[in-house]
C-alpha cells in the first residue's frame, strides 16, 4: 500500500465514524444475523441519512444486519450503531418469528428442518440430496 493509498483509507475511516458521531460500539448486542423489521416509532431528529435508508429497506422486507451493511456499503459495526439508535426509538424491532432457535445451543426443530427440506425440493426439483454416509 502506498502512503497515498493508506492516507485515503484513513480518511474514509474517519468519515465513516462521523456517521456514528464518534461512537465505536453499538448499544445493543446485535449479531451479524440479527433480523430487523420496521417498528412503530420514528427516529429521533438529527439522525444520519443512512438511518432513513435502513428504515426504508426494513419497511420493504425484513433484513439481517449483514444485509443492511452490504446494501449501505458500510462496515458492520457502524451499521450496528445506527441500528441501535433506531431500536432505541422503536423505529426498528427484532421480529419474534425470526430464528425459531435463538438459544445458543438450540437448533431448529425436526419439523422445521423437514419443512425446509420439502421447500428446497419444491424449488429445485432436480437437486439431488446425496445419500447419507454412516
Amino acid at each position, binding site marked *: 500500500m502506498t502512503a497515498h493509498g493508506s492516507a485515503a483509507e484513513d480518511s474514509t475511516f474517519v468519515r465513516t465514524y462521523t456517521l456514528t458521531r464518534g461512537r465505536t460500539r453499538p448499544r445493543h*448486542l446485535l449479531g451479524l444475523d440479527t433480523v430487523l423489521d420496521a417498528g412503530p416509532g420514528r427516529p429521533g431528529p438529527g439522525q444520519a441519512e443512512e438511518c432513513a435508508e435502513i428504515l426504508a429497506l426494513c419497511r420493504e422486507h425484513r433484513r*439481517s444486519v449483514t444485509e443492511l451493511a452490504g446494501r449501505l456499503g458500510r462496515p458492520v459495526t457502524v451499521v450496528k450503531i445506527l441500528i441501535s439508535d433506531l431500536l432505541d426509538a422503536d423505529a426498528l424491532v*427484532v421480529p*419474534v*418469528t425470526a430464528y425459531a432457535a435463538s438459544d445458543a445451543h438450540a437448533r431448529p426443530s425436526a419439523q422445521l*428442518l423437514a419443512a425446509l427440506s420439502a*421447500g*428446497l425440493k419444491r424449488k429445485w426439483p432436480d437437486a439431488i440430496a446425496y445419500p*447419507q454416509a*454412516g
Partner: protein
Amino acid sequence: MPSPTPRPGDPAVVLRPSSRPRAGAPTVLKVVIAGGFGAGKTTAVGAVSEITPLSTEEYLTEASADVDSLAGVEAKQTTTVAFDFGRLNLPDAPVPLELFLFGTPGQDRFVDLWYDLCRGAVGAVVLVDTRRLESSFTPVGFFEDIGLPFVVAVNQFDGAHRYHPEEVRTALELPASVPVITCDARDPNHVAGVLLTLVGHALKSASASPARPASTTTFQDA
C-alpha cells in the same frame, strides 16, 4: 478458543425479541457457508440466492491482535473481513420459510464471529478447494467442537485435480457420519443438493441426539 461471552465494554443492552411479529412473516432459518479465500463461497451463495450476494465488511481489532505481528501496528489497527450474504424465500414449504445464507472466511481469527453466525443455525457447509485443502481444517474443527451439523462440499474447479470425496474425507480426518460430496458451486441444482444433504444430515443428527444441548450441563458441581 475464545469464549462466546461478551467482551468487557461490549454493549450495555441485551436485545430481546419484540413481541410484534409481522403478520404471516416466514420463519427465518440460516445456513453458514465457510471456506477459504477463493473456495467459491460467493458463487455458491449467488447460485441459490434471490438477491445478488452482498459483501459486507466488518472491522476486526481485538481478534487479530495476537495474530498480527506488532510491526506496523499503528497502520493496522483494523483488519477487515468480508462476509457474503444471500437469502431465498420458500413460500411453498409446509411452513413459510426464508433461508439466510452467510458466507464466511475460513481463518481461525474469525472464530468469534462464527459463534454469532452459528447460533441457532441449521448447520454449515464447508466449501473445499482441493488446491487449498489446509484452509478447511479450522472450520471443520470449529463446527465439530460446537456440535453444529455440517457437510463438506468439494467445489470442482476447472483444471484442478479431481479428488474422490473419500480421499478428501481421509485428508480432513472426517468421521463416516459427515457427508462429503462434490459440487459445482455455479450450478443452483448442485448447491440446492448440498443444502438438502445438509438438512438431511441435520435431521439425522437431531434425532440421534435430541438431548444434546442438555448433555453439556450434566456435569455435577463438585
